[in-house]
């Protein structure tokens, strides 16, 4: 029996692990956190249909039970050595593995909004990120200003840390546009009286039912969309914020006072993906994501033999895309191990 080590028990890792177990391989899934699900575990509802994120998490738990593979939680990779398909891994607890194949499913990191200082995150009171908002929604908290008042005007700011070379990220994070639309709708349900604005550069509604949700936001939820990138925010005496942008469709500068500003933070490779990329001596792309051997036809193969890639360690992905991608990775690993055995 072949052994496969999968690094990361998020959506991609669990999917790849359960598929490879079904194929009859021995799977060891290594996770640094005490819980599975990765970033998905922090979500309340998912776009574009606002289903509870717990449904997907429950499905993952079921797969783990059914397949019965080994999960090592609270475990980090501390040493990587080897080459040409022969690898050995060391964990910080001192366990060592010599697997026949490795799947990297270390996922992504989130842009730290503090780096975009002109937007005032962690400086002004009523500036939060999309992650903070999702957390409040998950906990069932009322959305309030820090002084306890109900916000009368709210602005979502798209592309924070995405498509922004000054932030070091020239890529599009792909999922923030639809996240903003989803969260604006959820906020509308809580704040029926508020004015809600989205400041965007482009709205990239590429996925199934994304465009439909965007239309619904305009038609049924009275969300206003303004095309223009925020230049800066400053705080007023009453802790509301004065924001400035160009309304590029009118060709005129625009200023607005808002009670609450929500920054839609982008997706980055993240520390884990970067350190694994270095550890296995893999090629990375210009944004730091791990580069697949071929972006069209070998998306799950890395530049090293025996090291495979699954999910958002290669680029930003939706949940659905991640599951597809992880299954594809499992098939690649399975075929690789079969060939290796017969050779």
């Amino acid at each position, binding site marked *: 029996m072949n052994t496969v080590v999968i690094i990361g028990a998020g959506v991609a890792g669990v999917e790849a692990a359960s598929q490879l177990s079904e194929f009859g391989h021995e799977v060891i899934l290594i996770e640094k956190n005490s819980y599975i699900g990765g970033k998905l575990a922090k979500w309340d509802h998912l776009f574009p249909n606002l289903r509870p994120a717990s449904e997907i998490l429950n499905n993952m738990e079921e797969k783990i039970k059914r397949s019965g593979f080994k999960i090592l939680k609270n475990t980090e990779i501390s040493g990587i050595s080897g080459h040409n398909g022969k690898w050995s891994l060391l964990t910080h607890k001192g366990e060592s593995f010599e697997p026949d194949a490795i799947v990297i499913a270390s996922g992504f990191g989130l842009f730290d909004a503090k780096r975009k200082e002109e937007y005032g995150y962690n400086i002004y009171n009523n500036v939060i990120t999309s992650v903070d908002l999702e957390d409040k929604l998950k906990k069932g908290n009322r959305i309030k200003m820090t002084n306890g008042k109900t916000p009368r005007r709210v602005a979502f700011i798209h592309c924070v840390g995405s498509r922004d070379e000054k932030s070091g990220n020239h890529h599009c994070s792909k999922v923030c546009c639809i996240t903003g639309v989803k969260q604006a709708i959820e906020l509308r349900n809580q704040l029926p009286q508020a004015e809600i604005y989205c400041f965007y550069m482009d709205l990239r509604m590429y996925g199934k039912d994304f465009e439909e949700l965007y239309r619904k936001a305009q*038609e049924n939820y009275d969300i206003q969309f303004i095309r223009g990138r925020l230049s800066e925010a400053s705080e007023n005496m009453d802790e509301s914020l004065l924001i400035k942008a160009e309304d590029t*469709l*009118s060709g005129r*500068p*625009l*200023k607005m006072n808002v009670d609450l500003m929500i920054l839609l933070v982008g997706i980055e490779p993240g520390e884990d993906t970067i350190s694994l990329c270095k550890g296995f001596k893999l090629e990375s792309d210009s944004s730091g994501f791990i580069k697949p051997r071929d972006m069209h036809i070998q998306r799950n193969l890395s530049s090293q033999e025996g090291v495979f890639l699954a999910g958002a360690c290669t680029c930003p992905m939706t949940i659905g895309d991640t599951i597809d991608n992880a299954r594809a990775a499992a098939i690649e690993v399975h075929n690789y191990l079969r060939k290796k055995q017969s050779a």
Partner: protein
Amino acid sequence: MSKFGFSIQETRSIDFEQFDGRLLKYVLEHEPSFRVCLSCGGCTATCSAGNLIDFNVRKMNMLIRRGETEGLEKEINKCMLCGKCMLVCPRGINIRNVIMLIKKGIPKFRADMELHDNLKYNYHAY
């Protein structure tokens, strides 16, 4: 008061604190399809009037959304109501009805709008 030969320039920026949303509200109430505009500019590209004279139907609709109603009455009369914009609109907005509602709405809110413009003027004069 002595004249200094220069005046105070009014700001070009759209100020949401001066937002006059009455006309927008009136149009949206009677033609809800106006909400789903993408600002693609298809209407302006095909516009019979816009191809001959300085008239931009997309921009005009945008200004109403921003509560900017100055000079609107003169602008709206440039439309010939040919309806070509409705044929090209990807979101199926009844643009002709939007124009008709603006025409109807202007006299309704005129007094208010003029007052609003005066207030704006006075504000910047001080």
